[in-house]
Structure formats: structure tokens, C-alpha cells
């Protein structure tokens, strides 16, 4: 099936996976809407979004496990929209590992290859290589039931690895593991990507995983991509109100108000000359956003042009840093400080805001100004 389709255009030269006008509906419910992404060769792309936003659905479309109702998918220059999963040159790792429970680790790795009638020595070589990369050597004769969660996940990755493919797909591979193991395997995955240089598409709802692993993150909501950019770009200049609220913990503080000229007017007034407007500013209702960690307090706030005073309701010392929960104009206002702060509950503090680090969104369209 693949050989009948010639490589399409040089526009796809540098692109590993190209998703074009993709649409998917379950009956009348559109789960993916007009999606477009181009993923570079060797890129680590993370699909991030709340549960139910369509991440797995998109990944399954790329894998060929779901049939899109519209649009095209290209992998390595081939139009694979109608191709079987096994013909697409992908390997996939599932959240539940999906190992074949009654087969040894070795059989798990080689089952697909045997089925594809690969020569025996080839199979041996590939299994050995995967076992070496993933440190599976001593486990090869065990059954999945006799492995720990982390080991099972490595076998699952191994099963994708032996397929010798260009694109790896991961569907929340770490979410069944405990926090410590998750952090360890995250680093291992990153190392793996660096040494293999495959294209990886990784689905998660965990923003720490997304930020640490990704070359680029695609943030999804309701089957639509909200922003597709490098992690820091998303963090610093979120494209809309949803992204701004989704990325960062605790989330960004929002203050309702209006824009007059280049000045924000609300419970506090902020002159926004230093702000990088994406277009000439227009007067109207806006939402002002500032991250908790970008709010300056007391002495540090002294140099700020914008200052106000708030009362601290709750102090949450977390060691590395401390969270302050205050109230500003009736709304909750969160501040993140260094861990060693002397501020106590009930204190009245001066907070300062640097307009250059703030975000402004149109109240109507919720898009970044």
C-alpha cells in the first residue's frame, strides 16, 4: 500500500509527521476539529491538555488506530491516511503498558517481528539492542507479571524500539507510576530521545512532564490546538486566556479591567508601555495576567512602577518556595516567594508588578494582545 504513494512534495522534506486539516467525529460529536501540525524530524512534541480534550484520539489517528473523518496524515513523506497501523512506521507505548501478559519479555519484544517474518538473526539483533538500551538484559525471560511498573514500562518502550521506526508515539506512559519513578523515567526518556534522535509524540496531562520533555508543546482544548510552541514561549507568552491559566502552578493571577491607550485600569492601574503588544493596542475590556512567581514583594517591589498593598490570608511554606494566598479586589491573588520569607499570615505586604512580565488578553476573544 505504501509503495503506491510517491513522496508528496519537498515541502515535507524536513517534516516527520504532518497532520493536515484533520477531523474526527464520533457520530455527531466532533472530537478533533480541523487540526494542523507539522512535526520536525527528531522533534519531541508533547500534546498537553485536560482529560477528554482529544489527545489520545489524535494520537490514535496518527497511529492508524482510529480512522479520521476528514484530513490527511503524512509520516516521513508518505500519505498514510488510509494505511494500517503496522504499515505506518510507528511504534507506540500505552498507558496500561499493554504487554502480552502470558509471554516472556523476550517474546513480547519479538512477537511482532516474528509475525512480520523477519529473519531470525535480525530479530535477535534488534531484541539485543533494545535490551541493552533499556537495561532489560536480566529480565528477558520473565513474564510481565513478575516485573515492577517501571520495568514494564521499559519493556513497552522496548517493543516500540525493536520495530526500528522513525516515529514513537506515547500515550501517557508514566501516569500509572508513582511520583518518584515517574521523575526517574522522565529523565530516562529524555536521554533516550537524545541518543536515538527519533521523532517522538508524547501525550500527557501533566504540565511538568510536558515542560521538561518537549521541544514543542501543543496545548489542546476541545479538540482544537490552542498554542503550539516551545515550552518557555508558552510559559512566557501564552496565546490565550486558557493557555495562560493552564500552564503554571499555582495558576496565573487574572485581574479584570479595561485598556485605555496603553494603560490597564482595574483594581490596580498598570501603565503597559514596556509590554510587547502584538498589534496596536485598542481600548476595551481586557484581562490582565501576572504569574505568582513574577509578583514582587516588599523590598523587591520598591523599584516597581506599580505597587499596591494586600493582606496575606494563608501562608504555605513548601521548603524550596512559599506560596502566599491574598485577596485583591475580592479575587484570590497568589504569590510565590523564596522559601525563607519571614512573611506571616495577617501581614500586610506591598506587592509590585513588572508590566514587562505581565500578559494582557482581550476579554471578548480571550486572545493575547
Amino acid at each position: 500500500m505504501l509503495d503506491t504513494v510517491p513522496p508528496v512534495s519537498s515541502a515535507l522534506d524536513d517534516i516527520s509527521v504532518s497532520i493536515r486539516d484533520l477531523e474526527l467525529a464520533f457520530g455527531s460529536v466532533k472530537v478533533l476539529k480541523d487540526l494542523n501540525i507539522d512535526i520536525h524530524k527528531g522533534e519531541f512534541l508533547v500534546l498537553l491538555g485536560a482529560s477528554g480534550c482529544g489527545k489520545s484520539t489524535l494520537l490514535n489517528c496518527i497511529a492508524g488506530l482510529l480512522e479520521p473523518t476528514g484530513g490527511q496524515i503524512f509520516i516521513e513523506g508518505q500519505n498514510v491516511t488510509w494505511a494500517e497501523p503496522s504499515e505506518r512506521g510507528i511504534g507506540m507505548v500505552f498507558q496500561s503498558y499493554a504487554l502480552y501478559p502470558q509471554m516472556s519479555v523476550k517474546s513480547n519484544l519479538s512477537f511482532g517481528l516474528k509475525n512480520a517474518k523477519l529473519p531470525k538473526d535480525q530479530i535477535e539483533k534488534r531484541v539485543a539492542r533494545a535490551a541493552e538500551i533499556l537495561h532489560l538484559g536480566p529480565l528477558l525471560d520473565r513474564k510481565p507479571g513478575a516485573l515492577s511498573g517501571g520495568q514494564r514500562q521499559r519493556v513497552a518502550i522496548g517493543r516500540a524500539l525493536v520495530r526500528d521506526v522513525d516515529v514513537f508515539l506515547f500515550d501517557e506512559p508514566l501516569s500509572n507510576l508513582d511520583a518518584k519513578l515517574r521523575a526517574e523515567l522522565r529523565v530516562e526518556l529524555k536521554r533516550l530521545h537524545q541518543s536515538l534522535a527519533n521523532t517522538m509524540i508524547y501525550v500527557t496531562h501533566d504540565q511538568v512532564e510536558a515542560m521538561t520533555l518537549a521541544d514543542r508543546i501543543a496545548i489542546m482544548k476541545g479538540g482544537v490546538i490552542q498554542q503550539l510552541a516551545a515550552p518557555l514561549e508558552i510559559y512566557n507568552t501564552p496565546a490565550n486566556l486558557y493557555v495562560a491559566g493552564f500552564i503554571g502552578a499555582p495558576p496565573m493571577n487574572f485581574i479584570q479591567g479595561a485598556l485605555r491607550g496603553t494603560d490597564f485600569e482595574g483594581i490596580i492601574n498598570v501603565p503597559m508601555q514596556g509590554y510587547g503588544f502584538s498589534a496596536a493596542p485598542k481600548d476595551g475590556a481586557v484581562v490582565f495576567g501576572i504569574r505568582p512567581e513574577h509578583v514582587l514583594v516588599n523590598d523587591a517591589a520598591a523599584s516597581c512602577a506599580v505597587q499596591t498593598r494586600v493582606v496575606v490570608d494563608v501562608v504555605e511554606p513548601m521548603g524550596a518556595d512559599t506560596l502566599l494566598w491574598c485577596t485583591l479586589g475580592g479575587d484570590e491573588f497568589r504569590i510565590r516567594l523564596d522559601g525563607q520569607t519571614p512573611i506571616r499570615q495577617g501581614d500586610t505586604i506591598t506587592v509590585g508588578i513588572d508590566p514587562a512580565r505581565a500578559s494582557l488578553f482581550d476579554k471578548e476573544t480571550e486572545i493575547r494582545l
Partner: protein
Amino acid sequence: MADLSVNTPATRLLDGPSGKRKRARFTPKRIMIYGALLLVSFYYLLPLWVMVMTSLKGMPEVRMGNIFAPPVEITFEPWVKAWAQACTGLNCDGLSRGFWNSVQITVPSVVLSIIIASVNGYALVNWRFKGSEIFFTILIFGAFIPYQVMIYPIVIILRELGLMGSVWGLVMVHTIFGMPILTLLFRNYFASLPEELFKAARVDGAGFWRIFLKVLVPMSLPIFTVAVILQLTGIWNDFLFGVIYTKPATYPMTVQLNNIVNSVQGVKEYNVNMAATLLTGIVPLTVYLISGKLFVRGIASGAVKG
């Protein structure tokens, strides 16, 4: 990143396949699957069809025609005859006698066995005492003992109690042999309820019966329904116990049916036989069709041990 557009309005589609793959509505594989299922269904429905058709024909037509063919002339005479006139031995008052016997056997057996087993399951989960699990294990293993091993000693017990041949003797037997599966059913169900519920009730000062009646029973309606379905069909369909522990006057419907159809005397009236067979099958069939998923749950609970 400027060259990588997100959600561009203009189409980016290139040549080649796009969207849903156009497939024939029915692939050969689908046709084979449905074909196989229809064939299986045919086999399964055939006896029911034949039964209904035969029971609606007159005897001459039965002798002449094809058992699969629908009746040329529909008659309900065989049904009337099967219900009110068919003979077993010297009695010629039809299956109605067996029907009412079965009702008299089934209703108390179902009620009694479920009351006993539910209280028992509750005690096993929430009021364990030393040895309770051992007795339960014996009970479960007992479910696998062939009845043939126990039937004769039970004859003696029933005789001693003066219940041999009576409806109540058979009720007792059904209650006993329904106990393993029902106790298992209720035990597993009560064990799946949050323990805090029971603890809270105890802290509130409720005792054994109060907790059972006021707390557990009201929230266990589905499992009681499953138990009723399981027992109703099981007891109605019983033959072995009926034939051993009752006498002709108290025979349940299945025993009477077998006697009517397999009697060697007289001219065989196949249409009446099939009407009688259908009459006997109607009760469990109705239960099955009405209960649907719960019936499946009932038999699955028998299958899934532990």
C-alpha cells in the same frame, strides 16, 4: 516557527488519500461474521419455532405436513388440551395440576432460600465468628457434590420429618441446595459494600437485625432481584428432586410434562405434547426475557468464584 501555521483557514490538503477510507458497506469479512451469526441463530431458534408451530396445528395437519411449516389452520385446541385434559396415569386434568404444584413449590422455596442465604451472607461478612469461614468453605464445595450422593439419606430425613412426598419437603430440599450459590452471591455483594456503612450503624447503636433490615437490605435490591431470577428459573426447571421427593399428586410441572410426553400408552398427540412443553418453558423464558442483563449477572455470579 513562523512557517508552521496552526489552524490556518485555507486547506492544506495534498494529493492522495484523505478522510475516511471508502469501503464497501459490507466487506467479505463482515458478511462472514453476520452469516455465521445468522446460522447460529437459526440453529438456536429452530426448536422454538417448531415447538410453536406444532402446538398450533391440528393432529391431521401434523401427520401430513412439514414440522417447520406454519399451520394452515391455526387451532388452540392443543393448548387447551395440554392445560386441562392431558393424561398422566389415571389423572386426566392436564398440566394445570403440575403448574399449580410448581407454583406452590417455587414461591416458598424462592422466598425461604433467599431470606436464609441473605442473612447468612450478611453474618459471614459483618459478624464473623470462629469457624464461620470453614462452614462456608464446606458449603461451597458441597455445591459440587453430585446430588446422587445425597438423595437417599435425604429421603430418610424427610421420612423422619413426615415431609416425604409433600410440597414442603421439596421446598426444604430446594432451600438447602440453593444455599451455596445464594450465600456466595450475597456474601460477595455485602463484602463489596463499604465497611464504614456497617461501622457507622454499629456506632449508632444498631444491632444485628436493625443493620441488616434498615441499612443493607434497602441498598441491595439488585442483588435480591438477581437471586430471585436465579432461584425462580432453577427451581421451576428442576426435575430430579421433584421426581424423587414428591408423589404423583404433588409432582411439579417438569415431572408431569415428562410423564405426559414420554408415556407409552395411547396415541401420541404431538401437538398437545409441544403445547405442554411450551407451557412448561414459558415461565422461565418470560423471566429470562424480562430480566435480560440481570439473568446474565446471575449465571455469571455462579461462574465467577472467589
